[in-house]
Every structure is written in structure tokens, then in C-alpha cells.
């Protein structure tokens, strides 16, 4: 089964053609990051405007890349949420129009389900598994017993981890997006600044607003005292705490659910600190760890095409009235 997938939930216009949920026949990702850099973050209205300008260009490119016609496609999968509503709508309307023109099934895919299934493009998922989804908009721990069954066991109560990285980067005067830069700086620094371990409790939830405020206050106080901040050291101290809590709660979930498979997904899965910490712990505890390549970590339509295949196997299809949702829970009825 061949699926044409569309993803436009934030600032990437992406389309992909995926065979049987595992094989990427062609993916196009048009990132708007250079536009949003000027503003220090994603501007929703500018993102929506860019999506509509490029939507058919991306469609033409992906068909060329896969050397296919839309007639050869069996179904259309699309991210219906969560995300920026104006951005989601462009991809959604394109998907609905294609479904209407060619009379193909329309498969609604939850963005987080997509991130999880990005791993399926590398290696077939093995169940049961725990998925740690970490990105600019999401921080979630999900338990999966089988294909396309999701049980969210924890999530952030406030900022997403990637969002927190971007905000800390702003304090340190690092241009947007800050995550990758902090990761690099952290490697050069030492863990010398005392920061709290965020939401260190027995739940699977996360909270990153506290550590963000702690960094802001620390920076402010040091500047007041006339001290200069050692940026590399602060980056290292911050990253260590974030990595520690993510690792701690993820390993706890694996143990309590008696699960031997861990997958990490989302843009922050590219973070070297998180990767190496989880690798170490997984080795120690005999856990199979899968992390997708960078290309599939950040937002892309390939992951939507992979997830869409398993959604379709479960009978998840939508009629032409499908609407976008800015907020929606994984596994809820659409």
C-alpha cells in the first residue's frame, strides 16, 4: 500500500510517499527556519502564509522524487493536529482536495503518532514499547502494547523541552533555534551552576518552566553582581539537569511497565546529551533503544506516512469533513 503523506503542523511544509509504512519512496521537506530566525521564533501567520505559497510546489517535487503519479497512490494521510491551526489547515485542505479529486481514502494522523512511527522507517517497531517524544512542542512518555495503540503515561505540565531550550538560548543570547547550539556549548562546559532537578517526583510528568526561570534568575543575578556568565558552563549545567530527569523517568517507565523496547522521537531526539545518557542506561539494563536519524527527528511527512499505514490497518479513515485541531490527545477519537 502506497500512501502520500502531508505534514504542515508548524514551520515545515513536507510531503512524502511511503510504501507499507516502512519504505520511504521520496520525501520533500521545505523548512521555513530561515524566515522565522528573523523573529526569534515561529510566527504562526507567517508560517501559514509560507505553507500556502509552497504547497503545490512540494507536491510536484515529491511526485518527481518518487517518480510517481497521484493515480498510483492508494491513500492520503495528513497531520490533523496538534499544531498551529493556520498551518495545519493548509496541509489538511490540500489532503482533502486530493482525496476528493482522486477518490482516495483520507487518513487523519496525530502528529505525535507520526514522531513515534518515524522509528518504523529505520527498524520495524517491536512491542510492547515505551516512546519518549521530545520536541519543540511536545514532551511525552507513551506506552504502546501493539501497533497504533497509544497510552500516554506522562507529559509536560507546562513548557515542552525544546521550547525550554529555545528560551534558555535566548537568555544566553544564542540565535533561534537554540537547542542544537546549547547542545554543542554544553559539551565544552562544566556542570558548575546549581540548578534544580525539574519535577523530581514519582509521576511520569515533566515540568520545565521552573528550570527555565532558574536559568533566567541566575543569569540576572550574576549580571547584577557584575559577574560574567560562563555560557558553556551554564549550558552544560542546564542540559545535565534536563537529561537527568528525562532519563530517570524514562527508565522508571521501562522498569514499571516491564518493557524492553525504548524509542526516542521528535526534534530533541537529535540532542547528543539525551542520546548518550539513554544509550548508557539502556545498555546497562538490556533495553533495545531506537533513535531515528536526524532527518526523521524533526517534523517531516515520512513519519506521517508510516503512522498512516498502521492507522489505516486499524480502520482509521476520515470523511471529507475532517477538521484540523490545534490541541488533541494521542489516541482520542477524531
Amino acid at each position: 500500500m502506497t500512501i502520500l503523506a502531508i505534514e504542515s503542523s508548524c514551520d515545515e511544509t513536507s510531503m512524502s510517499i511511503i510504501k507499507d509504512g516502512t519504505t520511504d519512496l521520496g520525501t520533500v521537506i521545505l523548512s521555513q527556519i530561515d524566515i522565522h530566525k528573523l523573529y526569534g521564533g515561529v510566527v504562526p501567520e507567517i508560517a501559514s502564509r509560507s505553507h500556502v505559497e509552497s504547497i503545490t510546489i512540494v507536491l510536484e517535487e515529491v511526485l518527481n522524487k518518487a517518480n510517481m503519479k497521484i493515480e498510483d497512490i492508494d491513500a492520503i494521510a495528513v497531520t490533523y493536529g496538534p499544531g498551529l491551526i493556520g498551518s495545519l489547515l493548509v496541509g489538511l485542505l490540500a489532503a482533502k482536495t486530493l482525496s476528493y479529486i482522486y477518490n482516495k481514502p483520507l487518513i487523519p494522523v496525530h502528529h505525535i503518532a507520526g514522531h513515534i512511527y518515524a522509528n518504523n522507517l529505520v527498524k520495524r517497531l517491536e512491542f510492547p514499547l515505551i516512546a519518549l517524544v521530545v520536541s519543540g512542542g511536545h514532551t511525552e512518555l507513551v506506552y504502546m502494547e501493539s501497533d497504533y495503540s497509544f497510552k500516554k503515561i506522562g507529559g509536560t505540565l507546562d513548557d515542552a523541552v525544546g521550547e525550554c531550550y529555545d528560551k534558555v538560548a535566548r537568555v544566553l543570547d544564542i540565535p533561534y533555534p537554540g537547542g542544537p547550539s546549547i547542545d554543542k556549548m554544553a559539551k565544552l562546559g562544566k556542570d558548575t551552576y546549581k540548578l534544580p532537578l525539574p519535577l523530581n517526583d514519582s509521576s511520569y510528568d515533566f515540568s520545565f518552566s521552573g528550570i527555565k526561570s532558574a536559568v533566567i534568575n541566575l543569569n540576572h543575578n550574576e549580571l547584577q553582581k557584575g559577574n560574567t556568565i560562563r555560557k558553556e558552563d551554564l549550558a552544560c549545567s542546564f542540559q545535565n539537569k534536563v537529561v537527568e530527569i528525562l532519563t530517570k523517568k524514562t527508565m522508571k517507565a521501562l522498569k514499571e511497565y516491564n518493557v524492553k523496547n525504548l524509542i526516542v522521537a521528535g526534534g530533541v531526539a537529535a540532542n547528543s546529551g539525551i542520546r548518550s545518557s539513554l544509550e548508557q542506561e539502556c545498555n546497562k539494563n538490556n533495553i533495545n533503544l531506537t533513535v531515528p536519524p536526524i532527518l526523521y527527528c524533526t517534523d517531516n511527512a515520512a513519519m506521517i506516512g508510516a503512522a498512516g499505514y498502521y492507522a489505516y490497518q486499524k480502520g482509521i479513515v476520515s470523511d471529507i469533513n475532517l477538521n484540523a485541531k490545534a490541541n488533541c490527545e494521542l489516541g482520542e477519537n477524531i
Partner: protein
Amino acid sequence: MKYLFIDTCSNSLIISTIINNKIDYFFIDKNNNDTSSKVMKVIEEAVPDIMGIDKIFVVNGPGSFTGIRVGVTIAKTIGFCLNIPIIELSELELLATTNTDTKYNVALIDARRGYVYAGIYDKDLNCYLEDQHILLNDIKYPIDYTIINSYDNIDLLKIIKKHEFDEPINPHNLNPNYLKRTEAEEKLDDKRN
């Protein structure tokens, strides 16, 4: 010749088909606030077989930013996939098709904070004041005009006839005509100046 007309720019969702200069199907929902979920259903009803369409007329603004994108995305996608010519139309000119006793029609759409989108057209839809985003108080009115801000008596055939043989636009180049930059862009410019 069979044409599909799409206007999703305002709360009045309008979908129509025109066959040989006669309206064959006309849908208007004046209090629509759910265009994105409804619109395809209406198009499906209006045009069960999209292959029979010779031309698409799409209103690409001004109006609700999100609304404009809905219609433009649909038109672009159909136009690209099936190679159907697309003609873009102005929402203000559409309003100005309303039949009145005056020489000019002043089409106005609320743009908030004292601003409007305005365009002034004569009876033959010749433009007197080009479509623009302007303070309501700054509009210079011609002599003998009527203000039009409702879709109650628009004349769809009039605007189609006027633009029927316009040069079609490449679907990749069809874009919304917002007439207004985003606030973020305006602020960035202010900062730079």
C-alpha cells in the same frame, strides 16, 4: 463551458458552478464559521465529477487570512493536479457587482482598528480606487456612490463575464492577496527604521 467558483474569504462561504453563462449551482452560507470542515462537502455536492470543470474562479482576498488560504489551497491543488486553468478574483470587486442606482460602488470589508479593505468600482467593474488596506476615514469617495458591505445582492455572472478570458495563473503562483502584511513583519520593519 463549465466553471467552478470558490469564495471562502469571509463568513459568507460561496460555492457555485456556472454552465454556459448560467448559474447551475449556487450555495451561500452567510453565517458560516466552519469553512475549513464544510467547504469540501459543498464542492463535492456542486461538482460530483471534477473532470468536467473547464475553469476555476477563486476569490483570493482580501478578507479573513485563514479563510483566503482555504479557497486558494483548494484551487491550487485542483489546478495543479488536473491542469485546470485558474482565474483569481477580488473579493472587493465581487461585492462591487451589486446592482445600485449610483455611478460607483464602494466595497468595504472591516479590517479592524479603524481600518478597512476598500475598493471602488464603476458599473462596468472598472476600478476607480484600487483595492487597499486603508483607514476608513482616509477614503476619498467619488461623487455618486453606494457603500457595499454585504453579499446579499452580488452578481456572480457579472464578475465572471468580466474576467472569463483573463490570462489564467499558474497554480504554483496563485497566492492569497491579503493586502496587509503580518504584524510581525510590520513590527520588524518599524524596528529597522
